[in-house]
């Protein structure tokens, strides 16, 4: 490993880590203002996970039905189970409208109504008039909204002369003695050469970490890299116990089987052929809430009533609906089953298991996307020069539970907000701060650790065990004994990572080394999730505890903060005061 002083340095006004919707929207704002912008992405930018977002973007345009940003705000606060910060939510819902128009002008081909206006579809959790009739708020470009947005933003960035470091892996942030973010150590995956990028500002936009769970819907790249970098830089992670699971993923694979399958009349059966949801939810049965269905599936399996040789999944039956209904109303499921399972769902049941989908928690930021952490003067002191946006951040607009159509909105609005704030920060701080070898050395040490030779466990084995552990001990079934045992096992696994060795120490395209660095990140975000979940003894939004089934506003209407040093938990209040309107006080979340 080269010494700190011998590494090449590049200089930029802004360094953006991650090339999904949040990173690219920030980059575009900056490059258009003629700042020198570097975007570092471990895969080619248009292969970022934003490409997989099919749903759409919420904005109260009122094109299909009456609507108002304030109604959107109400729905988002309620959906968050009152854990969302209402100043950030107001910002997001107001900014949604110009954000969609801006994207349209940039070239995103939104679907249209007959009158030429942007088409808007209805999604769950959307209401008119503060909890009244169904609203239609989601703007979409057919079923490939994420793809359209990502490609449009990438093309616009090329035109604006954003500098892309494609297939570079960010190893760690570099901060100076005063804690100011002054850049990052990155690795060229092709050559294996490290590079220092010095920047006046750094934006983390690295997306989610679904890969920490065995069964998940996320692309392989979603390994929580930015979140773990923040942790190692001494920044806590916020609300990590809130992770959205979908009840029906393809068992052992993770892909979503849409709720529509049960909406059309599909139902779940256990290994004894019993329609078990009748026991857990006699009225709603298979259409009970997501967390109820997810927990019921896992309970059946835990109690030995799963299906298959290992009794580790249940079956979703749609075969009674007839080939016509299955093939025409559920074409996506038909394709998935045919390609991944070799079955026709019109003839055979589908093996399913709850699948991890979306992180509500992440790097704490304010509504300007500035990273905030507890310090001398309070729980939300700005970390100078450091920003975060998108799924890796927790601003917090989703609180304990995200509404459909709000995640693309989050990345766009707060990506743009980061760009806006970076512009003024760079104007006020026009010079690079001095970077000394001592600032770089911790990052180099992390890289050097994987150069150790000799015998040891394999990355893939430890990673598989981590994913299994997280699923078993911090998945949809959560109680004190299960998670306390999980924390101990995870601590032991973290120790074992020290003994993992790479067999391949070559420089060029050593993807095993990248996977080892990703494993470090997964272990860190896994611990943040497990610790936060263990300590919150209430049920709220996506975090549901078998042993504490009720929401407890008196004790728990507060944000969790996990600090890596000493695996410590801290807490801070929810920002219940919006910017210009009255606050929405907590109420039972019933639909």
């Amino acid at each position, binding site marked *: 490993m080269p010494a700190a002083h011998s590494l090449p340095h590049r200089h930029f006004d802004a360094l953006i880590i991650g090339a999904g919707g949040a990173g690219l929207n920030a980059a575009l704002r900056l490059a258009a203002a003629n700042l020198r912008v570097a975007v570092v992405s*471990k*895969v080619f930018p*248009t*292969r*970022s*996970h*934003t*490409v*997989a977002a099919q749903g759409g973007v919420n904005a109260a345009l009122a094109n299909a039905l009456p609507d108002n940003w304030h109604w959107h705000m109400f729905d988002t606060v309620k959906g968050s189970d009152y854990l969302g910060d209402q100043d950030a939510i107001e910002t997001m819902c107001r900014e949604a409208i110009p954000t969609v128009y801006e994207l349209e002008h940039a070239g995103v081909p939104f679907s249209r109504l007959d009158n030429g206006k942007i088409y808007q579809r209805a999604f769950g959790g959307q209401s008119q008039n503060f909890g009244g009739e169904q609203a239609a708020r989601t703007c979409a470009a057919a079923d*490939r909204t994420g*793809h359209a947005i*990502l*490609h449009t933003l990438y093309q616009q960035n090329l035109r604006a002369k954003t500098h892309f470091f494609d*297939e570079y892996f960010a190893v760690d942030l570099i901060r100076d003695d005063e804690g100011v973010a002054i850049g990052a150590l990155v690795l060229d*995956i*092709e050559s294996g050469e490290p590079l220092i990028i010095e920047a006046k500002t750094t934006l983390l936009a690295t997306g989610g970490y679904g890969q920490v769970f065995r069964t*998940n*819907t*996320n*692309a*392989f*790249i979603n390994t929580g890299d930015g979140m773990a970098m923040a942790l190692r830089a001494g920044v806590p992670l916020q609300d990590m116990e809130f992770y959205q699971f979908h009840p029906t993923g393809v068992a052992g*694979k*993770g*892909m979503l089987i849409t709720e529509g399958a049960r909406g059309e009349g599909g139902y779940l059966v256990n290994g004894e052929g019993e329609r078990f949801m009748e026991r857990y939810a006699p009225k709603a049965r298979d259409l009970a809430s997501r967390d109820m269905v997810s927990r019921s599936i896992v309970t059946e399996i835990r109690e030995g009533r799963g299906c298959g040789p290992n009794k580790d999944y249940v079956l979703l039956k749609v075969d009674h609906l007839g080939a016509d209904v299955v093939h025409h109303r559920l074409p996506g499921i038909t*394709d*998935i089953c*045919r*390609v*991944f*399972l*070799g079955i026709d769902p019109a003839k055979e049941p589908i093996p399913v298991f709850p699948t991890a989908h979306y992180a509500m928690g992440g790097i704490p930021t304010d509504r300007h996307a500035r990273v905030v952490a507890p310090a001398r003067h309070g729980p939300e002191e700005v970390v100078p020069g450091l920003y975060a946006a998108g799924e890796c951040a927790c601003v917090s607009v989703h609180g304990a539970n995200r509404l459909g159509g709000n995640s693309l909105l989050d990345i766009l609005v707060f990506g743009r907000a980061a760009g806006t704030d970076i512009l003024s920060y760079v104007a006020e701080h026009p010079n690079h701060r001095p970077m000394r070898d001592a600032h770089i050395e911790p990052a180099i040490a992390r890289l050097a650790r994987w150069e150790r030779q000799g015998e040891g466990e*394999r*990355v*893939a*084995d430890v*990673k*598989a065990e981590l*994913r299994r552990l997280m699923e078993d001990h911090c998945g949809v079934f959560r109680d004190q004994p299960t998670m306390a045992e999980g924390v101990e096992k995870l601590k032991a696994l973290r120790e074992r990572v020290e003994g993992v060795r790479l067999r391949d120490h*070559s420089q*060029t*395209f*050593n*993807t*095993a080394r*990248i*996977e080892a660095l990703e494993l470090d990140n997964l272990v860190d975000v896994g611990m943040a999730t497990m610790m936060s979940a263990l300590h919150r003894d209430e049920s709220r939004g996506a975090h549901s505890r078998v042993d504490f089934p009720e929401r407890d506003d008196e004790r728990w209407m507060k944000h969790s903060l996990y600090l890596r040093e000493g695996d410590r938990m801290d807490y801070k209040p929810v920002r219940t005061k919006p910017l210009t309107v009255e606050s929405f006080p907590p109420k039972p979340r019933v639909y």
Partner: protein
Amino acid sequence: MERQIQRLRWQCRRGMLELDLLLNRFLDQRYAELDSAGSADFERLLGYQDQILQDWLLGQAVPADPALSRLVAAIQDCMLEGPRTSSSDAGAER
């Protein structure tokens, strides 16, 4: 060869889980058996956008190029067949 597979492994990292599963499995199980024209086709396939690959690999569209069409079918077949050899580090986990 090993370096070439590592390089391609990174090209098989895509924005969607479905593509990750299909492409990585094919790389682990079948890539080594391809002749030079076959491996060139695989590289060419990886150059397409995720959305197009998704349409092809999930069977919503068929590539006009017969070589790519055969390759897509081989990738789909590979998903449903059992493993032929012990797989590499990244493949072992999934």
